[in-house]
């Protein structure tokens, strides 16, 4: 069993005897050091979806599925195509990618994991930390190096996130793919 806050987009869990893939997991601190997680789930058999909320420490049953390491190749609407180590093409439907879409960019080299259910690729899991380049943000705030003051930044694929005020256009930043949050400036 895993706690609800350990699940992230691409993983599969069992609810009431059925398999559900996590398309999105939103974590929030509710009060006095407790937290809640809202998930967007898709039923792997029926395609039905639901958006339940769990306490962060609720125990849920993960379903261990076949996986293989892949890298992103290209987008052929509505399919995203990945390549495994043996150059097999693996197609994943756009709607099954959930938050992973925020970080897919042409030419990316991150080694991801394709997850298979009954022989079909049903999701892609990104590495926990990825590095992306900031394509636009307001000029850096002089003097603030604490990393506590945040501002909006846009990545090359258009995804926007909050970054530290000292980040500049062209900077490579580390992102936590579980939360979609800025972790720090990438070491060059």
């Amino acid at each position, binding site marked *: 069993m895993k706690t609800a806050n350990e699940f992230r987009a691409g993983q599969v869990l069992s609810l*009431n005897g059925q398999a559900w893939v996590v398309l999105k997991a939103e974590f*929030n601190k*509710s*009060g006095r050091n407790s937290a809640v997680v*809202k998930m967007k789930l898709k039923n792997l058999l029926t395609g039905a979806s*639901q958006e*339940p909320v769990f*306490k962060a420490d609720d125990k849920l049953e993960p379903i261990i599925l076949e996986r293989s390491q892949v890298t992103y190749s290209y987008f052929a609407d509505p399919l995203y195509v990945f390549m495994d180590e043996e150059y097999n093409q693996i197609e994943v439907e756009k709607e099954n990618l959930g938050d992973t879409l925020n970080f897919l960019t042409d030419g990316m080299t991150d080694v991801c994991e394709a997850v298979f259910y009954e022989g079909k690729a049903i999701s892609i899991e990104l590495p926990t930390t990825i590095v992306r380049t900031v394509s636009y943000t307001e000029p850096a705030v002089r003097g603030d190096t604490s990393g506590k003051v945040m501002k909006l930044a846009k990545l090359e694929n258009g995804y926007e996130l909050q970054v530290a005020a000292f980040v500049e256009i062209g900077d490579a930043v580390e992102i936590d793919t579980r939360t979609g949050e800025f972790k720090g400036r990438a070491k060059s």
Partner: protein
Amino acid sequence: MPLMTNLPISRHWHLFCRVIDNFGDIGVCWRLARQLQHQHGQQVTLWVDDLRSFHALCPALDVSVAEQQRQGVVIRYWAEEFPELTPEQTGDVVIEAFACELPASYITAMAQREQASCWINLEYLSAEDWVPGFHLSQSPVHNLSKTFFFPGFVAGTGGLLYEPGLANLPRQMAHLSARQTFLSGFGLSPSLADCALQISLFAYENPALEGLLDALQAFPRTVHLLVPAGRVSAGLDAWLGENTVAGHTYCRGALMLSVMPFISQPQYDQLLAMCDLNFVRGEESFVRAQMMGRPMLWHIYRQEEEAHLDKLEAFLGHYCRAGEGPAGSRLADAFRFWNQSLPAAALNDSQAQARWHELLHQLPVLQNHALAWQKQLLALGDLASNLVQYATDKV
């Protein structure tokens, strides 16, 4: 006489409360239990795991008795070894307050009911933007469905916990004789009701306390500061240089500082209602001051990784929007200052004193602001009524 109008069908509510620290958990649960019973005519059982803490709020409670009835509410001790209940003995509506975990045997019994219970997790209060998106979400656990119910400050949340008559209390306490009677009840001189400003102080330990007391002492008008005994008491003793005693008043310059014993919820409501400014903390007192339309400064419950500061800012984003222009911004800074989230601000120097004096001079403006905010909150309906309406639709 309890207020009961247009009562919904009476159902059996089971409300579970774990006392973690302080009196916030049981304070909210006890108030909710009574309101469900008195105002909505529901049958309520309140399960509490700490009767001693509860006793402080309900002195009539016998801590040695596992099941008793007080003010129309059945109170049961939530022992570690939970009694076996039949499915019919579980509640039609079951509330786990503040995400406390229900006993496993209770969940099992609940799952065997012929008609499913309406199972609700009553969550913590937060003004953050994500709350409306989580409110009323279902949680499929233990082959049952549990609803997450979030109190809140905006449409799309469950509102705040208050009784219909609460907003009238400030008008009652505006009479000098009412304030004098209140003070006399605690052995305090009725003449203190004549002070230019009445301020209540309920807070956690706070490094900005010394600066506040210095500022009140040097204020050009007389200030009566009323402090119920609690976590701030040691800070008072340190500033005064003596051990304070409940029922005594200590004079320092313009400041008359009265120490009060631990007071009941109705007495605390009266205190909030008679004061020009209330320092409140946590959740319970914070909500009461707002629903009475009184100016207040909130000392938020500290959380790991400074998560409370995000919650403070989220609240200020709503609260101070109701105050126009510079007044709203100054008010927000006062909240940040009291919670040490203005990093560059020294807490106990002459600038701090000027900051406090400016705030006190702004009280007439803040009073208008508090009333405008109260009006917004009243439009959301009260938490107990919203819960009853939700449960009525579900069961």
